[in-house]
């Protein structure tokens, strides 16, 4: 696979002689806010040649989406281009009148947005929304427009397009909606397609199918593509050229393969080092008690040279299963029209065990039932059949004091760092809440414990008086972890705990939980959709599909020697799975 990229990087040299399709020079974009003018893009340069693909990579807040939106002037009300040029086939787009820009949009530059759920108008049917794009760009009118609509949708991979024209967005799955949006973006055969995180909201397998399809289409039509993505693996796999953005600036740009193999800017180096891939190894705790160096990102990932024989230590210890899940099923009754109810088997005969002090990862795509398992283990829902034991006691019948005791020893960290902390609660109160609920200690001792916990998750003590809305996603997730640690539990259930975070922050949190495990002897149930992350933290893996566990083995076995076709497909789908990232 890597040979492809060598090929494409040499191809760039040939085309550099021709005039570029898109050339951005010294672009400055800012937003007017109540706190004054905030620059978002600061002097960005990039060049894209006809028929080529370029990816802008960056974390949230890097200005990558703003750059893309500035090209066809889709900036929200408060945003404006304050300097520089955007040359498209030689004409400066920043100087165009609004009606001239309208002719560029759709017709010459297509756009595929990020979130398929919110980018189609819920009150108009699919056919209408595709057809209006076709008509507005003068591709076809009247009856021909309808025929073209069906064609466009079929091209985008909607096989039964004729029958689905009259359906509404809410009747489509996320993947289907994204196909519709890609169809709209390409409907007038634009010379350039801007794809702003086109598949970030989708499952990996769906993502791969859709990106493959997009690649075929743009190659056939000769469309240039500008990808915007946070995923380095995806960028390298899909684009010949890479532009890395950080805090509104371009920090590094060049051929993908070269940047991947030889990142020059320290930020790019960090990004490359943190990008989880199948080639990664499990993070080993490198914590030295007297320093906080462990939070430095350089210790993430392949650190082969620092492999400490912790795995051996784990293996030599006696395996006592702390949590045992045996033949557990969960059935929901779904109310349908009328008085009918449908039964949905969310979890189907699932069994696994987690030895004390280890991490088990539960992997699956959306709808696989993995989060339901988390709720069952946490006793937030009751099992329909089967049993869950904790410390050799069945947890199903726990009531009152026993349940409270169980909760004290099994704590959760949830996915959404924006949703799992009460916005009205200060950080101090949030972390102290489990202590209060379980009646642990008095006020001063709780305060001391809160400070200790903040230190453990490497946050300054002054954070106690802050509120969640002032903190970043990663900081919130560290607070959620501190809260989970407050009662010194034995088990922490991490439900997609790092999925919403930028890659560097994600690496930092993964390091943190690994260190905490080593230090406190914690047992983790790690639930995620992201196999690449699993390799960094898990000792064993269960792969779930449609409520069932399809494969269950040690992490190395699953990655090096997957036995089930579904697991193989999942592994294949990870963007940039097989690249050896330069470290």
């Amino acid at each position, binding site marked *: 696979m890597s040979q492809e990229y060598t090929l494409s990087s040499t191809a760039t040299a040939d085309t550099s002689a021709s005039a570029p399709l898109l050339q951005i020079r010294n672009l400055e974009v800012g937003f007017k806010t109540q706190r004054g003018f905030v620059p978002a893009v600061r002097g960005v340069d990039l060049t894209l040649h006809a028929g080529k693909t370029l990816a802008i990579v960056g974390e949230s807040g890097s200005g990558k989406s703003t750059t893309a939106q500035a090209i066809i002037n889709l900036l929200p009300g408060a945003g404006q281009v304050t300097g520089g040029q955007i040359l498209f086939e030689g004409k400066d787009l920043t100087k165009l009148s609004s009606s001239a820009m309208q002719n560029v949009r759709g017709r010459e530059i297509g756009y595929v947005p990020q979130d398929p759920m919110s980018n189609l108008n819920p009150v108009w049917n699919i056919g209408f929304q595709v057809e209006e794009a076709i008509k507005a760009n003068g591709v076809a009118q009247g009856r021909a427009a309808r025929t073209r609509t069906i064609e466009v949708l079929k091209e985008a991979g909607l096989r039964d397009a004729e029958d689905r024209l009259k359906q509404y967005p809410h009747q489509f799955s996320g993947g289907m909606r994204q196909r519709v949006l890609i169809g709209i973006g390409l409907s007038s055969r634009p010379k350039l397609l801007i794809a702003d995180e086109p598949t970030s909201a989708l499952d990996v397998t769906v993502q791969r199918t859709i990106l493959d399809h997009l690649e075929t289409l743009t190659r056939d039509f000769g469309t240039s593509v500008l990808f915007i993505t946070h995923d380095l693996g995806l960028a390298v796999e899909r684009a010949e050229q890479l532009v890395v953005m950080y805090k509104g600036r371009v920090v590094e740009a060049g051929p993908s393969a*070269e940047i991947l193999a030889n990142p020059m800017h320290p930020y790019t180096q960090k990004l490359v080092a943190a990008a989880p891939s199948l080639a990664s190894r499990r993070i080993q705790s490198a914590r030295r008690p007297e320093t906080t160096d462990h939070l430095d990102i350089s210790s993430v990932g392949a650190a082969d040279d620092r492999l400490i024989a912790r795995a051996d230590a784990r293996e030599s210890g006696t395996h006592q299963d702390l949590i045992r899940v045996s033949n557990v099923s969960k059935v929901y009754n779904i109310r349908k029209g009328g008085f009918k109810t449908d039964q949905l088997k969310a979890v189907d005969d699932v069994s696994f065990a987690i030895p004390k002090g280890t991490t088990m990862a539960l992997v699956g795509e959306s709808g696989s039932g993995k989060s339901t398992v988390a709720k069952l283990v946490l006793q937030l829902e009751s099992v329909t059949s089967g049993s869950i034991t904790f410390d050799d006691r069945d947890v199903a019948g726990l009531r009152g004091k026993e349940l409270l005791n169980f909760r004290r020893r099994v704590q959760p960290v949830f996915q959404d760092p924006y949703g799992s902390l*009460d916005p*009205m609660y200060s950080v101090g109160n949030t972390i102290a809440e489990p202590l209060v609920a379980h009646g642990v200690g008095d006020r001063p001792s709780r305060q001391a414990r809160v400070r200790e916990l903040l230190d453990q998750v490497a946050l300054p003590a002054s954070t106690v008086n802050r509120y969640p809305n002032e903190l970043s996603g990663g900081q919130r997730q560290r607070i*959620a972890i501190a809260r989970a640690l407050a009662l010194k539990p034995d088990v922490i259930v991490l439900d997609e705990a790092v999925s919403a975070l930028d890659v560097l922050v994600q690496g930092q949190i993964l390091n943190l939980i690994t260190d905490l495990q080593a230090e406190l002897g914690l047992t983790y149930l790690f639930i995620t959709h992201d196999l690449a992350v699993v390799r960094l933290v898990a000792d064993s893996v269960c792969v779930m599909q449609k409520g069932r566990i399809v494969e269950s083995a040690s992490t190395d076995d699953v990655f090096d020697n997957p036995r089930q076709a579904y697991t193989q497909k999942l592994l294949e789908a990870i963007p940039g799975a097989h690249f050896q990232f330069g470290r």
Partner: protein
Amino acid sequence: MPSNTVPSAGHYVADLDETPVAAVDQVDETQKARSTWSDAWDSMRKRPMFWISAVLILVIVAVAAFPGLFSHTDPARGCLLPNSNGAPEAGHIFGFTRQGCDVFARVVYGAQASLTVGLLATAIVTVVGLVIGALAGYYGGLLDSIVSRIGDIFFAIPTVLGAIVLMSVLPVREPWTVALVLAVFAWPQVARITRGAVLSARNADYVTASVALGVSRFRILVRHVVPNAITPVIVVATTSLGTFIVAEATLSFLGIGLPPSIMSWGNDIGQARVSVATAPMVLFYPAAALSLTVLSFLMLGDVVRDALDPKARARR
């Protein structure tokens, strides 16, 4: 730099001095801590509309509480028929009504009834609606079904329409009965809004987290769910205070609200109607007082909503 290979011509690397790489995810300790409430207060006090409405409301409340401080004329006595619809004169700056009473004094003393009805009705509706809506939304199930269906029934009768019927058969007409009658038909609105807000707060991740942490169900309701669901209720309460005052005036105007023996703006407007052609100002003053009061509460409601609206906050 770990690299010793020379980058190709197309490989650009920014000058490190221009974009120093910050430590990952550091807490900015320079900003002061901000809770939702202090945030809301900060945004409110920057708005002139907040100060205008707040000062107006304070003045109106003071007038209603201590009318004697603002008018030396006793409006009930000293109504002299020779003064009927008389022009303003010294000591009687608003002139006289048809009955020869001092308009200024009547406007001052009328504030009490209007404000009592408004405040009382709002208080009842908010407390009842909040409790019922919160319990129904939080505990769900049968309780929710029953409460929602009963609410639907009351909701099907427009507030003032229901009040017209009930007031026309009620023997006791006092500010508190008017407030009670209005509240009887108005509580479902607050209950519905609370229920919706509680329902979405109940399903929030932080509630699930609290359950899993071992926090008791009732404590979660009181400490997490209600504080997060209270915003729309505050907004509705502020705005509906104004509409209750209008409703009372409408009822009094129809002659089934407060009796003529209790001074109220609604009554005065109704009575001034007959002589609107000859003495329009007699109608104007109580009407202006009424409108100004309602306007103050509406403006306050708007400011509060803007300050507490999470969408508006996010935009800031």
